[in-house]
């Protein structure tokens, strides 16, 4: 899809919404986009004599001091959206970038993702879904400022131009945006406004530093966990050791005797469980109180999941086809291939915890007829509704502040809003006292909502020329979508997140059969950054490398030969990777090996090459080179940074202690001492990122760095050791 450079009027925006301008009390300009015109607009309409701002519903505010505050309709949790979305709007607005501020918008209908229909961060869609919207908002605001200036100067709007927050007239006139804001706010919002040609962009496509760096480097930025409200108390919850278990009896005498502990009470938890909340004036008192609870749990009615038993069951399931995702070509082709030209491979992937650095938390104050919430949420719409449900309120009476979050990777997007529900249950009891619920790291590591365990079984028939002619692929793993509101996107009982990256492979395989089993297991599962691609890319890219080696072909050449002609982005990325890594691949030190991989996810093509040796029985990654086709890179510095760091997140699944395992229903890991993410020595020493030049619409960059790195590293290890690695984490080399 090429960039629209004219009146992009056909967007959801104009179909479902309309724009409204109003003056702020401070005389600024607000441009408000309502997606639900009749009800919301009426509800919010004010007498014209009393122009009043709706800061929560506004996207742009031009303040008298020249500051331009842009509302960001998504959570910022590292992905850089608080910089990139303002860049897009400010570019069309011709705003003075040094005066631009990005603010995280609260929950509100106007801030819903126009494609998903809910306010959320997911599917690497933040830029892809909001690019056009933010451009239009900027262009329309600019048109209103020009209209105000033209009227003031009695000239035609076409005679005016804008630059750096100033409108210039034909006869040397000029006026700052801030001076024009009040007049501009009275102008009608234009139905359409001319958008820039990409050649006119001044911010978009330029390397821009993040707006949130300084406060993140001097300790002044407040995350959700840093919230401090007058009279606030802190709560921690004793969760059952087995998912879904209930409190049978509790002895809280010792807990209550801890100084600072105010209340101890049972609360309902997700999945029919119950737990014990300890409320105190400080975190440390609450945690000490919880440590002293003596709880007897009843897990008699719930399944006690066990990793080793699950593997046995999954292997059994994988012997037969499951729900069919793809059935292409001749199903009997495999049997006609000689046994010597057939191979079978089985891969195992454990549960993975997201473990964002900022532990999960939510603050709620319930005032009887309304509530206020502060949360770093990827799912504002759902979390707001869940809290409202617990408190017996309507969602619109729950004011929901989006707090900056210390990572998330999918963990702050639980369809059942279980953390927010817990916080609301506690707030309901406390009434009018704000309570901050804190999940300790142990709660987080043991608390479920993991990337599901998966088993892949693949049978491949190879032609004489070394290319695969038949491919049967069975994937076993819990469904992430089933039982959630997102199940509506499932067709024929098939969870597409289980098979993504395999079913839609860009490799041309004539006889191709992909199916999935989605067994039910008593372990809550969730999307983990790049979702199905976390495991599917590993399987596909290690197998393709194996096929290339079997055919004695160069891994670049083999992939190119196998890729479908329409896999343009991947081809572009592979070509760029080959060129950019050529020098170091030729000068490889002794006992080093190169591994490559390529994978497309969220419409972004990525190719990766790594220089690996073995140190202390672990892979040492001396260098990673990445080539990326993500359409237009709105902020190339942000894209570069996201890929440089995102590959290390992807390496989580290679860590020796990088698995969540269960024994007799209980999670065996506790904290970062037993579930160990990559540290600096585990990450590539150097990472260079190369972006394919493009003027196509931007595609996702948050998740696509993750899938490529592990298969590339393992492909290099295979060259060094001759072994195939099909079971993660990488416990031994």
């Amino acid at each position: 899809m090429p960039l629209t450079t004219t009146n992009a009027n056909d967007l959801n925006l104009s179909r479902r919404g309309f724009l409204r301008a109003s003056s702020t009390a401070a005389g600024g300009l607000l441009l408000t986009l309502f997606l639900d015109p009749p009800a919301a607009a009426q509800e919010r309409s004010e007498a014209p004599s009393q122009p009043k701002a709706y800061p929560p519903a506004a996207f742009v505010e031009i303040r008298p001091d020249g500051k331009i505050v842009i509302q960001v309709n998504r959570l910022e949790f590292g992905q850089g959206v608080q910089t990139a979305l303002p860049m897009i709007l400010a570019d069309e607005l011709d705003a003075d970038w040094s005066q631009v501020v990005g603010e995280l918008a609260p929950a509100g209908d106007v801030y819903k993702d126009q494609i998903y229909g809910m306010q959320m961060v997911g599917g690497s869609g933040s830029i892809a879904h909001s690019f056009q919207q933010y451009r239009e908002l900027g262009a329309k605001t600019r048109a209103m400022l020009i209209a105000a200036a033209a009227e003031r100067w009695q000239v035609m709007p076409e005679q005016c131009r804008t630059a750096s927050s100033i409108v210039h007239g034909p006869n040397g006139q000029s006026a700052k945006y801030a001076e024009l804001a009040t007049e501009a706010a009275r102008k009608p919002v234009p139905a359409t406004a001319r958008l820039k040609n990409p050649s006119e962009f001044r911010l978009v496509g330029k390397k821009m530093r993040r707006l949130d760096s300084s406060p993140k480097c001097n300790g002044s930025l407040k995350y959700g966990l840093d919230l401090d409200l007058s009279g606030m108390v802190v709560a921690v919850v004793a969760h059952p050791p087995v998912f879904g278990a209930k409190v049978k009896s509790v002895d809280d005498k010792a807990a209550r005797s801890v100084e600072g502990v105010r209340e101890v009470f049972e609360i309902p938890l997700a999945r029919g469980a119950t737990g014990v909340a300890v409320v105190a004036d400080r975190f440390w008192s609450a945690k000490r109180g919880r440590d002293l609870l003596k709880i007897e749990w009843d897990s008699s009615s719930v399944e006690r999941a066990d990793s080793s038993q699950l593997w046995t069951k999954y292997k059994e399931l994988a012997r037969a086809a499951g729900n069919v995702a793809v059935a292409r070509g001749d199903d009997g082709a495999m049997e006609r291939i000689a046994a010597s030209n057939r191979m079978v491979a089985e891969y195992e992937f454990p549960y993975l915890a997201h473990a964002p650095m900022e532990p999960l938390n939510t603050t709620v104050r319930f005032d009887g007829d309304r509530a206020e919430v502060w949360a770093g949420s990827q799912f504002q719409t759902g979390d707001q509704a869940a809290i409202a449900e617990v408190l017996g309120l309507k969602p619109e009476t729950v004011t929901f502040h989006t707090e900056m979050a210390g990572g998330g990777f999918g963990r702050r997007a639980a369809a059942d809003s279980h953390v927010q529900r817990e916080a609301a249950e506690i707030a309901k009891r406390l009434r009018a006292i704000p309570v901050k619920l804190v999940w300790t790291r142990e709660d987080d590591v043991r608390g479920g909502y993991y990337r599901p365990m998966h088993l892949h079984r693949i049978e491949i028939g190879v032609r004489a020329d070394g290319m695969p002619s038949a491919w049967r692929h069975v994937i076993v793993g819990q469904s992430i979508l089933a039982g959630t509101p997102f199940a509506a996107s499932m067709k024929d009982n098939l969870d597409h997140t289980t098979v993504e990256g395999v079913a839609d492979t860009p490799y041309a395989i004539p006889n191709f059969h992909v199916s999935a089993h989605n067994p039910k297991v008593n372990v809550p599962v969730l999307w983990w950054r790049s979702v199905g691609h976390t495991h599917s890319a590993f399987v596909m890219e290690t197998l393709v490398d194996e096929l290339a080696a079997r055919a004695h072909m160069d891994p670049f050449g083999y992939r190119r030969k196998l890729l479908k002609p329409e896999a343009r982005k991947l081809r572009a990325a592979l070509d760029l990777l080959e060129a950019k890594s050529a020098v170091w691949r030729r000068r490889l030190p002794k006992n080093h090996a190169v591994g490559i991989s390529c994978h497309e996810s969220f419409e972004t093509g990525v190719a990766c090459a790594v220089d690996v040796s073995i140190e202390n029985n672990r892979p040492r990654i001396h260098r990673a080179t990445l080539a990326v086709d993500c359409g237009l890179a709105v902020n190339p510095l942000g894209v570069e940074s996201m890929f440089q760091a995102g590959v290390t997140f992807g390496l989580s699944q290679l860590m020796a202690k990088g698995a969540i395992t269960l024994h007799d229903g209980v999670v065996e890991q506790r904290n970062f001492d037993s579930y160990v993410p990559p540290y600096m020595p585990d990450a590539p020493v150097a990472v260079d990122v190369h972006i394919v030049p493009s003027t196509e619409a931007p595609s996702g960059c948050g998740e696509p760095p993750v899938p490529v790195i592990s298969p590339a590293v393992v492909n290099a290890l295979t060259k060094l050791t001759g072994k195939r690695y099909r079971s993660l984490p990488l416990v031994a080399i």
Partner: protein
Amino acid sequence: MATYQLNVNGAHREVTVDPSTPLLWVLREDLKMTGTKYGCGVSACGACTVHVAGIATRSCLLPVSLVGERPVVTIEAIGQDPVGRVVQDAWVENDVVQCGYCQSGQIMCAVALLKHTPKPTDVNIEKSMGGNICRCGTYFRIREAIKAASQRL
């Protein structure tokens, strides 16, 4: 509960807390200095790193009762230190942060490293920084920022 006299960022502070309370939670909840972060509580991630008598120290496992008269410096004041200023600037100029949650601890570790070893090798950097987790994975830019800061020291 007991009362402690602390020297935090050059100022005298008095707190009355349970003796077992880690310095981390005294800083965050009693002194309202939330720049020092809670990440794990078991000294495994380094998000809570502060300087105690000039030494990079995990504040999540250090009971307030053991701090004594040793001066404590946190991220909030490290910019007043010449090395701290250079490191913070290098972090911003190299666009290091993503979610940023671990970066207070990373910066405090890096400052301690550069005060002791102004021209660190890659090995020095890995040794000093190798106990701090960045879940976003910004390690490469952290290395670059440390090298950039080092050139200015």
